[in-house]
């Protein structure tokens, strides 16, 4: 008998008399959900992100590129990794910034791993959405914006449209129908990489980005 069959046989040999109902997660979240509008969600998300050393900047659909370039200059960044075939990547490239070299993530990582680890200062990705309650950004890496963009460069810029902010994790999963189509790797991120493994002292930049910069993109005409 295979290990699989032996394990399953042992589990099945135990007859469990109790018939438990499927836990009602939805009711619990519905009862604890805050009745907040978008502005209130933005406030909550901003506070949660800033509490874990994330920079949050309010931008609009028209000025986000200038804001990004200004922040990049203030940090002395030489280059920025961008996705391929994305609208925001194309908009940034069209701007042709003078002092920030844009590097598209065009090839499979196997051919340029060392460059990514040693020579890339920063990256920009678009968040799919966010969760106000736990101050997390939801990233959905794909062929255009691969997984390592949000992990290896020391500074990670995230563009987030405020209209996509959910109230809580359960709401994000159900509203977006995650169970019917997860990518190979989905992510929640709430700040720069950190650790408290040395005498409970918090230190940032353990392995991933040392800085997380969120550009909160408000719809044109909305109050930032």
């Amino acid at each position, binding site marked *: 008998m295979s290990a699989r069959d032996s394990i399953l046989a042992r589990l099945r040999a135990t007859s469990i008399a109790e018939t438990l*109902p499927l836990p009602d997660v939805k009711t619990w*979240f519905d009862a604890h959900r805050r009745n907040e509008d978008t502005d209130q969600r933005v406030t909550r998300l901003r506070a949660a992100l800033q509490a874990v050393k994330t920079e949050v900047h309010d931008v609009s659909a028209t000025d986000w590129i200038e804001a990004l370039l200004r922040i990049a200059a203030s940090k002395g960044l030489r280059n920025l990794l961008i996705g391929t075939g994305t609208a925001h990547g194309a908009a940034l490239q069209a701007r042709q910034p003078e002092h920030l070299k844009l590097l598209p*993530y065009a090839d499979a990582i196997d051919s340029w791993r060392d460059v990514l680890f040693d020579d890339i200062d920063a990256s920009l990705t678009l968040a799919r959405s966010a969760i106000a309650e736990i101050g997390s950004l939801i990233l959905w890496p794909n062929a255009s914006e691969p*997984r*390592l963009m949000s992990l290896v460069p020391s500074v990670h810029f995230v563009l987030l449209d405020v209209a996509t902010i959910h109230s809580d994790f359960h709401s994000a999963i159900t509203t977006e129908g995650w169970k019917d189509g997860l990518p190979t790797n989905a992510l929640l991120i709430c700040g720069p990489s950190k650790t408290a493994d040395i005498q409970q002292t918090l230190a940032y930049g353990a392995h991933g980005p040392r800085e997380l910069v969120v550009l909160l993109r408000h719809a044109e005409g909305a109050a930032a």
Partner: protein
Amino acid sequence: MSQVIKIHPMEDFKERSRGVLNDPGQRKNFRGAMDFLMAKRRAQFPDPEELQGLRDLGSAIRRYSLAHLPRLLEQLEAKLTANGVRVHWAQTPDEANAIALGIAQRVKAKRIIKGKSMVSEEVGFNHAMEAAGIEAFESDMGEYIVQLAGETPSHIIMPAIHKTKQEIAKLFADEIAGVAYTEDVDALIRIGRKVLRHKFADADIGLSGVNFCVAETGTLCLVENEGNGRMCTTVPRVHIAITGIEKVVEKLEHVPPLYSLLSRSATGQAVTTYFNLISGPRQPGEKDGPEEVHLILLDNGRTQAYADEELRETLKCIRCGACMNHCPVYARIGGHAYGTTYPGPIGAIISPHMLGLDATYPLAFASTLCGACVEVCPVKIPITDILVRLRNEAQARPDSMEATLRGSGAARTTAGTAVWSVWAQVYSRLGLYKLASWFMSRGRALSPTEQGAWTRSRTPLIPAPKRLRDLLKDRKP
């Protein structure tokens, strides 16, 4: 170096405990760390009602998942396989290591970079790989520190909690080429980051644990702060995940409450920096991610716990470590004294299934039964009830109905059995009890002044000059 699985007789446990108790530095480290973690957790649950509701929900999810475990494991396997993940089953640590080694040899791996995984500690993964000539390198900063020191983790969430920054500074200066002594924590982290970044890029295989497996979607969830887990599961071309069979839940929506309980109970964070959901290897067109993803599902005694309704509760554990942080025994002796992969209250109740009760029964007695662990357990495991059960099992007659576990009856001795048999006879017969208590009170002068461990720090136990019944008789008008 990871822990080698071995038998730890009672004398070893006592010796190790005594060693820590006689080390003021170690005691201070643990006391400080536990106070810090307890305060952080308390701050995360300001609303007692919300906490109780969430604990009820978390417990219900875990109980439901275990009640349907065989079906959910099959569903998980089918879904993962459809997603392109290869699923393996292992009954023992040796089988788990053989599976990992088979994968490593097939892809001609020389280096494995590891994320945090207590199950890999449980199976002695590093030793098994090293024996086959494959380097297994820890990348969690705490795990990296203890590996560099040639030690094992002393806590399941904060592996190097027993070390001061001065000790780590010296360790780095001694063991890492070109590193000068510094007590600056940021500088120490930068040193670790620099060393490990090269390891991620050079590794052939990344190994990780799993916090939750979702049957509905075929997803492996990883909770972490450092990003090393993401590195291990993304950079190398092969990712191997290893987990106990009990970690599966049915639906994706079951994860948020458990995640909330885990991060808040473990480190007092509302949420961790990263929550990583892996549902498959790199797909055509994708530019990164591992080409192969494997999941090893490990039994290692879990089916023994599963077979018993009371002991099955042990498998609800989500490995937050809150029971350790609040345990007065763990806070004084630390994780290494237990001598098992999982220390503290949860270790005392899970280890007998992995290593046998004969090897681990002293741990069930290393408890005040104060119930602090039960009070903070996010999924409401009745740890003290199970500890009492294990104490009874340890002293059960090996061939009796009460002996249900591997190693039951290991604590049973002829002298002890005789003493308790006499005690039972005396206390169940009124005449005998009266006679015995009369002799005890009249013969109190003969009480020994040396009464073993009791008189090491207490005055001797001496029967009262008058029995309760005599005192009551005296009060009658």
